[in-house]
């Protein structure tokens, strides 16, 4: 019996120790599909490498009616989301929270934002421009993207893993999830946070410096 007690406390100490020692090397997980790929090394040997899911090349019009591509976000981490300007449900809350992050990292050139509209009928670039201005975030740091229904809905569901859709039973005409998706410099998904949930947004604020620190090494 006593032995069991010792074992238990030993285990407890071990876990505490491992938790505290982990603190130094905290890293965000990588989300999405992954596959193993054989790569040839320089010395001719073959080893296995992991290939992670990444955001593929894209091309959308932004609020200034100029094209943005994945190169716009080269060497940046960015937060992506899906919304529409006439949305009266979750979007205002998401962007209220996202703007808070925007204000916090205003002076950091490595952090950007990308909001895709899912209202391909109404949210033209000029409409997005007006929205950005009124939200008070108009500038190159926060891009608002307009694209065809196919291109936006496909990248949402397949690559950012955010469900979007048209729904005539809803008063606004569209449904979508409120994820704020954190993308790293290698275009991998490193986190998804519910943009309407204060605690998750706070977690995102904590995770941004962790992700930024990864590249500094």
């Amino acid at each position, binding site marked *: 019996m006593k032995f069991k007690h010792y074992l238990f406390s030993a285990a407890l100490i071990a876990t505490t120790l491992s938790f505290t020692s982990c603190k130094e090397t905290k890293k965000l997980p990588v989300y999405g599909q992954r596959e193993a790929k054989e790569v040839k090394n320089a010395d001719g040997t073959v080893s296995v490498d992991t290939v992670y899911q990444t955001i593929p090349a894209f091309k959308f019009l932004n609020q200034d009616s100029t094209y943005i591509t994945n190169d716009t976000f080269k060497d940046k981490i960015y937060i992506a989301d899906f919304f529409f300007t*006439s949305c*009266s*449900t*979750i*979007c*205002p*809350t998401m*962007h*209220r929270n996202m*703007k808070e992050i925007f204000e916090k990292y205003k002076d950091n050139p490595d952090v950007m934002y990308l909001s895709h509209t899912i209202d391909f009928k109404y949210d033209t670039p000029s409409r997005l421009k007006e*929205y950005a*201005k*009124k*939200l*008070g975030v108009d500038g190159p740091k926060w891009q608002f993207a307009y694209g065809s229904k196919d291109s936006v809905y496909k990248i949402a569901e397949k690559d950012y893993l955010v469900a979007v859709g048209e729904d005539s039973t809803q*008063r*606004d005409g569209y449904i979508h999830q409120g994820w704020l998706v954190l993308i790293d410099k290698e275009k991998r998904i490193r986190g998804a946070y519910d943009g309407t949930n204060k605690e998750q947004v706070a977690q995102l604020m904590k995770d941004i410096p962790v992700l930024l620190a990864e590249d500094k090494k």
Partner: protein
Amino acid sequence: MRRRLLSLLLLCTIGLIVYSCQDAGQLRQDIYYTNGRDLYIKYCQNCHGVNGEGLSALAPPLTDTIFLLQNKQKIACYIKNGLSEQVTIHGQQYQEKMPDFPTLANIDLAQIVVYITNSFGNKQGHYTPEQVADDLKNCK
């Protein structure tokens, strides 16, 4: 000792009567206020914010006490039918379209009006469903 106890009891009873008389109206307003807060969270808070601060230039704040006082008879109309005309709040112009909420009943509207006009620095007292019904007849 017994007399003192009795007189104390009497005093308490009288006090309670006076207190509850004063509070009949206040109590009704408090009930409206609490229900109004739940409705506000559900229908209004996304845009107007938890503290009525609004959202940049997209949604106006609800802290302009003078505007709310002058337009109290229009608030029910704004909520029920939406608003697309330009409004000036705190000297700033807002012209984004506000959505309509046609399914809300008069009592819901009255409760929201009570909540809004007694929060965020406003203190306008009670509002009844009958007043809302009158207001709705005069909507533009």
